[in-house]
């Protein structure tokens, strides 16, 4: 099963439409999409406007490939579970987001194991043709880089000292 998600806030019809058209001629592939509360309903793929956290976790666990807008929540979840993910960035010129930060995100994530960047619908379709070659990777521990954790710990330790002096 392919699980597609566009997050819970804004619709991303360009992504869902592409999957819907693809599914029309691919009867043996199952696709489930979470299209957002204002998304245009697709005709051929299974969908829901939003999912509860539990339903979302179940879909993610069951699927072989995730297809998503370039939201960090879904990308981090995919990396944690070692699921291959295709990400397509929202673009401000189509009214899909306030700005083009998702384009910047994918530029900087390009080349990471398990992340497949689809700049637009055409790239999404070419990734879909290669689906069978997508392999799960090793699940990664859901923690930040040690040096970030250290910097935060240090900040906290300094803060505790200051506070005690102040009171």
């Amino acid at each position, binding site marked *: 099963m392919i699980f597609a998600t566009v*997050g*819970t*806030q804004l619709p991303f019809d360009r992504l869902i439409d592409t999957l819907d058209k693809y599914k029309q001629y691919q009867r043996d592939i199952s696709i489930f999409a979470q299209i957002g509360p204002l998304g245009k309903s697709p005709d051929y793929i299974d969908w829901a406007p939003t999912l*509860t*956290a539990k339903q979302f976790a179940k879909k993610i666990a069951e699927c072989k490939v995730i297809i998503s807008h*370039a*939201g*960090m*929540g*879904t*990308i*981090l*979840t995919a*990396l944690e579970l070692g699921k291959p993910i295709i990400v397509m960035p929202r673009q401000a010129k189509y009214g899909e987001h306030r700005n083009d*930060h*998702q384009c*910047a*995100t994918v*530029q*900087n994530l390009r080349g990471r194991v398990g992340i497949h960047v689809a700049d637009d619908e055409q790239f999404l379709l070419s990734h879909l043709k290669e689906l069978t070659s997508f392999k799960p990777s090793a699940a990664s521990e*859901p*923690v*930040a*880089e*040690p*040096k*970030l*954790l*250290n*910097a*935060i*710990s240090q*900040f*906290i*330790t*300094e*803060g*505790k000292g*200051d*506070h005690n002096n*102040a*009171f």
Partner: protein
Amino acid sequence: MTLNDPKARILAISSGGGHWIQMLRLRPAFDGCNVTYMTVDPKARHDVGNAGFYSVLDGNRDTKLSLIFMAIKILAVLIWVRPHSVISTGAAPGYFACRFAKLVGARSLFIDSVANAEEMSLSAKLVLSHANKVLSQWPKVSQKNGLEFHGSVL
């Protein structure tokens, strides 16, 4: 929780979705601390076990009234929890918490979302003059804005 607890008290606050998932990845840094979490989804309580937890109605720059309610609730939680440190991964809730931290004697650290790979987010820009420390998770953005760089949640 008492104010005489020898552990450092922390308010770990963010909005939902990816911001919250990034916060969860910082948890090892809070080991040995008395952490209170705050985010926009009440169900996120299940992610943090027995730690203190508050939720706040979501808001963004397009929903002014919800931002006012958000600011009031965050101030109330800051006064109640009296954290030594406020740690945030964005966005609007993190801005308010870092902005109000000084009022309760807390230091504040704002970590801009890893989604902001080319430019700082609006909330990070706005919080620059209020937070004790602002970090970007990308070297290029850190350099451009004169911020320290200490890696990312990835």
